[in-house]
């Protein structure tokens, strides 16, 4: 004889869901990466706070590279197109990604932007993330490398205040070092802070004003 029990409508059910909340973005990031790999294009995700100098730095790197091979820029910006306009002046393909107040780019938006440009003509894409040293860290975009930019004008403690961002970085730039003395900020201490978090990471001090470190940074990016 078989006995049956049935759940009553008010029975409480416990279910193991085991669902990663970061998986959807991670999956799209992988798709972006395969698309880029198929075309032999490397993307660099450039992250840093508002005013750290990401746009100017990308502009300087584009100037150095655009005659050697195809370069494009995806500019993430919550509201304005000022950064995209600046880079577009250099006659390279630019797509502005307006997040409409969103605090980070995600792989879905970047995937849409990648479909707006002719990848067959390119070797390198700079993706300028939203100015924010916290949120973008959680959302990989499918880039080959993640570059974090901090500048001496943000003060002495910018690295230790945003440790997670550096744990996921592949390369770090300490920017605006021409202003270090005026700001009374030690570039060596900032570099030491980065190495405390991640001992083997390369840190390049730069100045877009006098060109310091730009050659070294270009070489490092091309070697990635």
């Amino acid at each position, binding site marked *: 004889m078989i006995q049956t029990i049935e*759940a009553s*409508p*008010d*029975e*409480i*059910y*416990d*279910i*193991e*869901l*085991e*669902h*990663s*909340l*970061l998986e*959807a973005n991670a999956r799209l990031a992988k798709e972006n990466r395969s698309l880029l790999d198929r075309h032999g294009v490397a993307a660099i995700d450039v992250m840093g706070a508002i005013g750290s100098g990401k746009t100017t730095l990308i502009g300087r790197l584009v100037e150095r590279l655009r005659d050697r091979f195809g370069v494009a820029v995806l500019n993430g910006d919550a509201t304005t197109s000022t950064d995209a306009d600046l880079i577009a002046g250099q006659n390279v393909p630019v797509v502005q990604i307006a997040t409409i107040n969103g*605090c*980070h780019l*995600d792989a879905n938006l970047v995937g849409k932007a990648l479909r707006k440009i002719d990848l067959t003509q390119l070797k390198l894409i700079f993706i300028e993330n939203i100015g924010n040293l*916290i*949120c973008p*860290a*959680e*959302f990989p975009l499918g880039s080959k490398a993640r570059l974090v930019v901090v500048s001496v004008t943000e003060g002495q*403690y910018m690295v*230790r*205040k945003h*440790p*997670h961002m550096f*744990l996921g970085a592949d390369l770090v730039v300490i920017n605006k070092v021409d202003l270090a003395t005026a700001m009374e900020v030690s570039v060596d201490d900032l570099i030491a802070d980065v190495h*405390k*978090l*991640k*001992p*083997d*990471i390369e840190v390049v001090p730069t100045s877009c004003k006098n060109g310091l470190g730009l050659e070294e940074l270009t070489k490092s990016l091309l070697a990635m």
Partner: protein
Amino acid sequence: MHELSIASAVVDRVLEFLDAQDAKKLLTVRLAIGELSHVEADQLRFCYTAITQETAMEDSTLEIECVAAVVECPRCSYRGSPKYWEDALCAAPIPTLECPQCRGAVEPVEGNDCAIKTIQFVRD
């Protein structure tokens, strides 16, 4: 405020599940948040309460469990807790990717993710 993105992902997945089960009310959802993920529990709770209103998840309990970081060293084969930066003048010690044993660079192997573990619901 990426916690809103995370809270939305929770709500989307749970509502989809409840709908498929023809269940009317969620009682509890339990999340596991990695120590190395960048999710702030209080902000996540705030977002969760706000966006679950007038859904089958309204008034449900959000339980958050922290998953400790585990790192591995490719150089000396250390596996275990990360080294913490104790004197960084922060509210809590900061986990680092420096090997506590040989001072080389370690790889994080656990504590990166943010996931829904279990849910508890009633059909009616």
